């Protein structure tokens, strides 16, 4: 009798074995993310916006820099195919909004990646190594806070010119410190946790502890703070452009469009409304995606 049962069990396990997979933490994170409807919707929306910004200007009839002095500050209409209306120099607002989106999203992405990477590396190392290294590294952060960014921006632009990557660098220079401080704080708290002590006890080298054990546990705060950094970066870019230190005319960005629109919002509200709506939608999407990612990657939330 037992033999027969054993055989049956063996046959069963042989049959189902191919379909058994271990679940990697990333796969389970992705599943959890997919369950968050707001995050998924935001992701799709963001993709749509990005696609529109990349492809749209090629499909639309107007060029982003052709000024039409007969059609200045026109409200949105079907005639002339100015669906978003025109700005103060008679340029089509829809095209400009999409072109502006390209710049804002690119700057946002690149500057965020750069400053987040720098911030994490800096903060985690400082927090984990501690002692004098921590002190020196954090003093550098203090110094970066104290130096007025306007001054550095003026200097960098005037000495090095106004290439796109320089704008990204300039913004990165002012945006990494918050992340560094937050990460350092979390690291300080984490390093005294048991699993770190355990890793140290078995002799894992410091850099591996930092990058394999500490950093994954920082992800929650990092992700949330990254989604806070993105709007900051995009807005910093608009302030720089406003001061003549960023994107040059006729190129534009959402920040510049919104700034111009805010000046005339009582007279020509659409100049503020459309770019503003797109910017805020994109940023809301970043926020929800960020929250979704945080929830999905939280190692405790299994």
């Amino acid at each position, binding site marked *: 009798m037992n033999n027969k049962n054993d055989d049956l069990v063996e046959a069963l396990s042989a049959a189902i074995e191919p379909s058994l997979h271990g679940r990697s933490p990333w796969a389970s994170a992705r599943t959890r993310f997919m369950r*968050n409807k*707001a995050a998924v919707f935001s992701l799709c929306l963001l993709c749509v916006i990005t696609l529109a910004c990349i492809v749209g200007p090629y499909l639309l009839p107007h060029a982003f820099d052709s000024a039409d002095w007969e059609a200045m500050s026109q409200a949105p209409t079907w005639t002339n195919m100015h669906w978003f209306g025109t700005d103060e120099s008679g340029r089509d607002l829809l095209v400009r909004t999409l072109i502006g989106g390209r710049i804002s999203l690119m700057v946002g992405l690149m500057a965020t990646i750069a400053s987040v990477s720098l911030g994490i590396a800096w903060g985690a190392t400082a927090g984990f190594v501690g002692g004098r290294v921590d*002190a020196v590294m*954090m*003093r550098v952060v*203090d*110094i970066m*806070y*104290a*130096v*007025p960014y*306007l*001054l*550095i921006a*003026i*200097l960098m632009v*005037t*000495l090095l010119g106004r290439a796109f990557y320089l704008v990204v660098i300039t913004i990165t220079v002012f945006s990494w*410190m*918050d992340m560094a*401080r*937050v990460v*350092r*704080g*979390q690291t*300080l*708290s984490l390093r*005294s*946790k048991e699993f770190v002590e355990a890793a140290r006890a078995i002799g894992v080298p410091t850099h591996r502890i930092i990058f394999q054990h500490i950093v994954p546990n920082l992800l*929650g*705060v990092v992700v*949330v*703070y990254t*989604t*806070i950094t993105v*709007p900051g970066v995009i*807005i910093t870019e*608009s*302030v720089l452009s406003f001061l003549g230190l960023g994107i040059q005319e006729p190129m534009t960005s959402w*920040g510049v469009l*919104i*700034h111009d629109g*805010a000046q005339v*919002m*009582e007279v020509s509200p659409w100049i*503020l409304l459309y770019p*503003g709506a797109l*910017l*805020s939608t994109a*940023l*809301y999407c970043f*926020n929800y995606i*960020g*929250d979704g990612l*945080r*929830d999905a990657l*939280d190692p*405790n*939330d299994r």
Partner: protein
Amino acid sequence: MWSYALRRLLATIPTLLLVITVCYLLLHFTPGGPFDTEKKVSAAVLANLQEKYHMNEPLWKQYLLYLNSLLHGDLGASFRYEDWSVNELVATALPVSAVIGGVSLLISLLIGVALGSLAALRQNSVVDYLVMFLGSVGSVFPSFVIGPVLVMVFAIWLQWVPSGGWDNFAPRYMVLPMLLLVVLNVATIGRVMRGSMIEVMSSNFIRTARAKGLPQRTVVLRHAMKPALLPVVSLIGPMAISAITSAVITETIFSLPGLGKLIVSGASNRDYTLVLGLVVLVTVITVTFNLLVDLAYALLDPKIRY
């Protein structure tokens, strides 16, 4: 802990020195100087201007002269505001920025922590989404959009408060600027608090507290709050600093005579002494706040030891 604090304060001095040096060099290498004006001046007048401000000396000598006067507490004479010394300018502008920035930060903390906790405790519910949506308004719209909207609604349509200006700390001039700063800061604080509270609520010691049968309120307020506040506390430092020193757009929109205005006009006019003086001030404030924040870490997380 006190020796740690003392060591940090002593470490301020080299930091200060480094910051001053960096800014000093930056200022002198940035094109355009304080005497570049639309009406060109004769060589003799220029020579006298430079002598008046010690700018005819070699760079290193000017640097030492500046450090010397700094030791005596004299931040120098301003180039842009010719009748005033930097000490006087800072003394009048600092209280304005400090009060508006400080009070609005406190209010933002209270509201942000409350909203973030509420959202965390009702994670993924309608309340969560709604609270986060409203709270994020301050992070998706730039200040130069929210500000004018507030002005339009409260000052022009409703005429409840003036659209700007300042009169010796009269409350009606402080309402809108503080409202703007609160709206801007609540977003960040709320989100970070939410994330952190969610993490804490799922940790083991909370589970223990619940298992002990403690009511939710005690669990949250007595046990979860402290560790959850840690990331928020990291933010206070930079937020306080920027609330006080970089509120330029706020000060422009509401015509407030604060520090942000001084920093920008100092940089635009290459007012060397004003910029350096403000940099010294900002460094001192930064270091002090960061120290207070780090000490707060120790209070909140008993495992953190210096």
